[in-house]
């Protein structure tokens, strides 16, 4: 095989590779990308959040059935305090909103939720401090 033949064959191979690359690119644009987008659709943000929500409902169900009935009042105190985690949304509103209306709503929500956070955790702590497990002599 002389060098010219080799060069020709290499050229032919290069051409085929180029054609394949072009084809791959075409495929990527027409089929693979939609496939990827389809994959993303399956993990649609809403479905993702819904999955977490439902799993958390189950976790809550099993954890709460394990709470001893004697501590149901502290349970309400704690759930009350942690439901004020809505303060996260309030902080985002008060801190990043581009207009004063939304900021004021955020500020009010931060204030209301803070009453609950401090009040809820502290009143629960007060309740729990009363539950003595060791009998007094």
């Amino acid at each position: 095989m002389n060098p010219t033949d080799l060069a020709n064959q290499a050229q032919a191979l290069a051409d085929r590779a180029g054609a394949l690359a072009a084809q791959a690119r075409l495929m990527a644009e027409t089929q693979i990308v939609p496939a990827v987008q389809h994959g993303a659709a399956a993990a649609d943000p809403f479905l993702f959040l819904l999955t977490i929500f439902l799993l958390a409902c189950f976790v809550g169900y099993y954890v709460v059935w394990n709470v001893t009935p004697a501590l149901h009042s502290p349970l309400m105190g704690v759930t009350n305090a942690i439901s004020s985690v809505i303060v996260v949304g309030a902080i985002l509103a008060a801190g990043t909103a581009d207009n004063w209306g939304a900021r004021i709503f955020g500020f009010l929500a931060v204030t209301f939720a803070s009453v609950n956070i401090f009040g809820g955790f502290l009143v629960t702590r007060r309740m729990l401090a009363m539950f003595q497990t060791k009998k007094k002599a």
Partner: protein
Amino acid sequence: MATISTLAYLVAAVLFILALRGLSHPTTSRQGNQFGMIGMAIAIVATLFRPGMAPGGIILILAGIAIGGSIGAVVAKRIQMTSLPQLVAAFHSLVGMAAVFVAAAAFYSPESFGIGTHGHIHGASLVEMSLGLAIGAITFSGSVIAFAKLDGRMSGAPIIFPQQHKLNAALGVLLLVLIIAFVMNGNPVLFWLIALLSFALGFLLIIPIGGADMPVVVSMLNSYSGWAAAGIGFTIGNLLLIVTGALVGASGAILSYIMCKGMNRSIINVLLGGFGTDTSAAGAGGATADHGPVKAGSPEDAAFIMKNAAKIIIVPGYGMAVAQAQQVLREMGDLLKKEGATVEYAIHPVAGRMPGHMNVLLAEANVPYEDVKELEEINPEFAEADVAFVIGANDVTNPAAKTDKSSAIYGMPILDVEKAKTVFFIKRGMASGYAGVDNELFFRPNTMMLFGDAKKVTQEVVQALQK
């Protein structure tokens, strides 16, 4: 930064789960509560460090936390344990209102939450926003009514008017129509109409429910406040709000279920309201005539019998808390223990005005945790007990719940006090309980009535024991 805050939220969510997990036993509960506090602190700090926070905004936020936090801390420190139910109701209303405000903020500044641009919010986000808004508003006004009823600022009697349930149903349908219209065009007028209508609905849903059913209502509103937080979580795409909302929602739902079961009522029956009106007064009056005479005794008699008893079960009800008799009751228990008796406390699931309320009141009076027993645990023991000492409880001891199918409380699980050798019943008079049902226990030969104020009578028993 976004990844770090998401991770911080995950840690906070796990800490919240551990906070609830800790409540499985008093010894682990205090640590659980601390986990909750740490989780909340992590969530707040992580959010403050998110990109795009304006310095002015941070000052606003810190001011809000300082104002709200001080109010909350002072209230938590000062509140009396008997007033716990109304405090919890008031707190629920704040969560509901916070949800309304966050929904409003998201509506007027959608860019902050990445849910579209002003006037062009994504359809899905509008659905979630309107749900969070509606549930939050219902939680707010419903909790305000529950608070007013529990705090005695309005009568605990059910408020009933003709066509009430039809009106509520019609308003519910109207709310749904408004939400659909709002999702289609994102009109601010519709946003506020949804809020107003939900406030009205929350108000109308709770007014027909009587004071005795408030434990269910408080638990249910606890659940609603969770769902409201979850709704807002979906709106702003925040994982922590969704997880926490689900935990709280599930918790409140379970407590409502336990309370309903404790009264043998369905949640629908409770929600339709009207229970606790004195409709059975005439029938009860007739029934009284059929019974034998009532045996009344003195505190000295009670002290004498209990001194010679080996096993005493105390059955406290809400009346004990109203009379503030828990301290003196514990003194009585201690004296009897010194005499060598076993003293235990039997708690009905619906004793008190919120789930577990009676346990807290007894714990406050230094009654050891081990001495306090739940219904299933204590019921087999009444047959071996020499004395059942009923103080401020009535309906939860009524044997009619087991035998009389026509009774309003038929099917309700009761404490089997009638199986004890002697039953002492402290009561102001012969009035019937909340359910308006006569208690045949008063007329049994082994029952001795101790008429008078719960605290005063117990004090007299204590004095007689000390002699």
